């Protein structure tokens, strides 16, 4: 494994740990009947899954990075 890759992995894992701690410290219990706002259209992770797939595809073919939330698979000869 290249030196830079290992360094980046460590940075990534530390980041993940910090985010995990931050999230855990601010969790409130919300009763089922009080979740109306969470069902708002703008609160979805992906407003439109096909749109998210297309955007992801465009960025993956024009940038060096790939992946994100929930993605896996698919291929094309996009150059």
């Amino acid at each position, binding site marked *: 494994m290249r030196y830079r*890759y290992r360094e980046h992995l460590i940075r990534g894992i530390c980041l993940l740990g910090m985010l995990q701690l931050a999230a855990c410290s601010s969790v409130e219990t919300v009763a089922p009947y009080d*979740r109306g706002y*969470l069902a708002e259209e703008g609160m979805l992770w992906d407003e439109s899954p096909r749109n998210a797939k297309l955007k992801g595809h465009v960025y993956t073919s024009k940038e060096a990075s790939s992946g994100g939330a929930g993605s896996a698979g698919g*291929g094309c000869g996009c150059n």
Partner: protein
Amino acid sequence: MAQAQPEAAVAATKLPAQSQLPYPSPLMKRLGAPLLALPAYQAGTALADAPPAFTEVGLRYTHYSEDSIDQDVVIFGATDRYDIDVTQLWIEAPVGASWSVALDVQNDYQTGASPWFVGAQQDGAPGVIMSGASIQDNRVEVGVTTRYFWADGNAGFAVSHSDEDDYEASALAFDASWNTADDARTWSTSFSSSRDTLNPTQGVIPVFITEEDLDTQSGYFGVSQILSRTAIARIGLSYTLSEGYLSDPYKLRDQRPDTHERLSLSAGYRRFLIGSDASLQIDYRYYADSWGTDSHTVEVAWAQNLPGSLLTPYLRYYTQREADFFGVIANTDAQYYADDYRLSSYGAVTLGARWAVALGESWTLELEAERYMTDADWGVFDGAAAPALVDFWRGTVGITWRFD
């Protein structure tokens, strides 16, 4: 029911059966949510894990257009870059009480030129030699997904195949998610495997391979958590391994390793602001791979409720570090080399907006447009600037129909 006088008129306001209501407005979803805990309101309403109550058919058209490359940095070749027209068509329907099926078809039609290699101009500055502008390519992708729902979660299995003149890919994917008993936390995972085959076309650019394969395996694991009555967050981790022919056959000087490991860590946050009747959306991704590249992506969006529609302007900032073997002008003496601008260090900003409008009870119109701009100086990582960095416009229009 006896009337004291003749009816003034008859209004045909028949609503179909309870479980097949027209899609409720955001206000009604918000008002109805406290009642979902009561049996009287549960029959027929969409529960967290039940197949959709309606069938959906959708059509989207996207036009993607790259800016022409600056004549000053071109040594030879056409300056028009890619124009791509993408059409997506899908149908997704519930099957029985616990299943749903979706069929997706996508067609990409692409024209335009791309960089062939980077050389030195007379003054020593790097310059691009472009491919011929006569490239035309059509790609079709078809995918089928089946999904199973149970009380606490759902799982899907998808098969897809894509075909174009010089490239063929087949993929299998599996995903699943589980809710905890109080539905406050959702765990999700997915795995996929694909096999791609390249048969580069001999054309204006000479290519030196006839047929090559590459295999990709990818896995994702994530968790989403309700933080308060107005906020949710999620984190995720994905790992991808590609093996096989990973170089770009249409670039003269491109020799990449035959394995590529990629890791991405993502985090997301959504918060509803009651006073503004809008949601704040923040997403971050850190990416690192075995070729020496790492990157940060931040996306911020504001989803504003308007009467009958949702308007979401957004801003995305992306910065990546060059790959270990990248060179503005490729060093062909090294074991691996590439001058592909997509492996250089740069920063990119996207400004865009999405507008989803409800047209009556069953139709939704969506419009989205964005402008993507790249500049080597906008990144946070050091590295030489590639001359062929690209800017583009993308516009999408789509229509969705839901019915029972």
